[in-house]
């Protein structure tokens, strides 16, 4: 669903003034996008749903400090929150995993654990391959091709430079291509 950026900005302003309806409308517009961002990077729907809710709760608590900036969309800020919560989730999952010495070496650092692809259709193989990529590659490709974020916005989410984003994007595409090739084998 294509949403006008001005609409989101107005809803954000109203929400900052305490308008509950605007918060509900923002959630309706952005919940699925956040959910998709996290869905294939965590185990199961429950973790994805929990993470999505955590992201929106933090959005509400942080909303008074948010300041609209020229050329930067609200969703960029929202995905930044999502990424940090996702990283937290990875760290927590890694600590849980490392409790089992036999499984310790199977978890790459900050790499998304494999999703449950068995339940997915054949058309969703790309998601499976994407989920196998390092976290930064996943974020760059997701924001670039599914959220149509600009290089500048992706750089803001990742906390890096636009040049680095272009390098990451190039490497992520090559890695994804290799991954898909592996899937075909």
């Amino acid at each position, binding site marked *: 669903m294509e949403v006008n950026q001005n609409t989101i900005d107005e809803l954000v302003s109203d929400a900052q003034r305490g308008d509950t309806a605007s918060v*509900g409308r923002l959630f309706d517009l952005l919940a699925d996008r956040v959910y*998709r961002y996290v869905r294939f990077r965590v185990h199961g729907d429950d973790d994805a749903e929990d993470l*999505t809710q955590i992201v*929106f709760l933090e959005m*509400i608590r942080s909303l*008074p400090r948010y300041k609209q900036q020229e050329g930067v969309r609200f969703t960029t800020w929202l995905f930044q929150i999502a990424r940090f919560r996702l990283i937290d989730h990875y760290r927590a999952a890694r600590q849980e995993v490392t409790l089992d010495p036999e499984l310790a070496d199977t978890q790459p650092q900050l790499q998304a654990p494999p999703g449950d692809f068995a339940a997915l259709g054949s058309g969703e193989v790309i998601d499976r391959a994407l989920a196998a990529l390092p976290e930064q590659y996943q974020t760059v490709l997701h924001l670039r*091709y*599914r959220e149509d974020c600009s290089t500048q916005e992706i750089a803001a989410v990742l906390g890096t430079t636009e040049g680095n984003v272009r390098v990451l994007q190039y490497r992520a*595409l090559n890695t994804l291509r290799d991954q898909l*090739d592996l899937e075909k084998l």
Partner: protein
Amino acid sequence: MTPMTDQELEARLRNASRTSLRPDVHARMRASVLAEFQRVTNSSADRYNEQVNGPFHFIIQLFTTHPMIPALIAIVLIISTAGTAVAADRAKPGDRLYSIDRGLEVAKFAVVFGDDAKTKYLQELAEERGREFGELETEGDAAHAEEAQRHALDALERVRIRLENNQASDRAREEIEDRIDQLRDRFDLEDEPGNPTGLTEAEATVHGQTTTVQYEFNDRKSTITLQTTDVDQIVTSLADLLNIDEAAVRAVLRVEITGDNSGRGSDDQDENANGNVNDDNEDNQAGLTEAEAKIQGGTTVVKLEFNDQKSVLTLQTTDVNAIVQAIASNLGIDEATVRAVLKIEYEDDQGAENRNVNENQNTNSGDQEDEDQNDNENSNENQNSNTNSDEGESDDEDRNGNENQNTNSDENGQDDSEGEDDPEDREEDNSGSGGDQEDPEDNS
């Protein structure tokens, strides 16, 4: 198998699955989010709004939605502020609002523009303190009455300084001075402060042709020696030296005469005169029991009691030696006897106008009428002719302004000594009356 191109890969990424939250999960999560939003905003609504909109957003929003509120607040503020100011204005020393009253007065003085207005405002403050003083005195609050009086006097002093500095127009000055005089009367103040000039004591001792003046100025005692015996010149010299008004000098000056007449010409004269008098008029010398000279402007009125007979001698001079000589000559006694008895004092505060007229006459002696010149040159004769005359007969027009009163005394002396004195020497002696003053600092 050819690998996917970037375009194909990007197309597959864009067309990937569109996973969505299940409706029930979406609804449940939405409810949780809104509940959290309500909790956050309700628990810290002020902080939330303040953080979102800045500290004044609530006020701005309130003013926007209720435009009458700013007007109401303004009215309340004006009424409350004005009420406080009015209440403070009525405050007296000892009241809680008195400090506010004083603060408001200072603030108001700062915004009053123009010398007239500022001086007038200070005068009004002094009057206000005066009213407060009266009220407190009536109430028996002596301590605070004293405070009010002190503040009133401070204000008066400030007014006086502004008037002295010409920080008021003539028209405003007249009105302000009238009001100030009334206030001074209320506080039983003299027109002139006790001794604003700092001169508290001045004693001139005439000996021969010089005068030594011991004076106390600003609590420092000093001595000055003047080459003159003319009291008016002594006054002028001291006033010039201390840069104060002559009236201030006259107010405290006392003149004494020593028996030693050390003037060269006078010595000869005295020796001769004393010899003659001592030989021929012992009874007469003993007969002089009172000689009181009162100087009024350029005229000296001498009250004498000689051989139990009282008389008045009016002299057109203020020179001490000339006065002594005139008395001695008039009574036919020696000058030492006169000096032993003579007291010299100022009758009252001499008007500057008379003094100035006299001085002008002195400087314009060349234009004086012959009658005046004759009077001047023959002053001793005139003085003698005035013997036993009433004091009221002294006429300013008859006063002979002398170009230099010392010169006048010289001429008198010359007349008395019948050429034995050297006028040039006298002039040399007297010429230094102003310039040869000793530095009081050195003499202190």
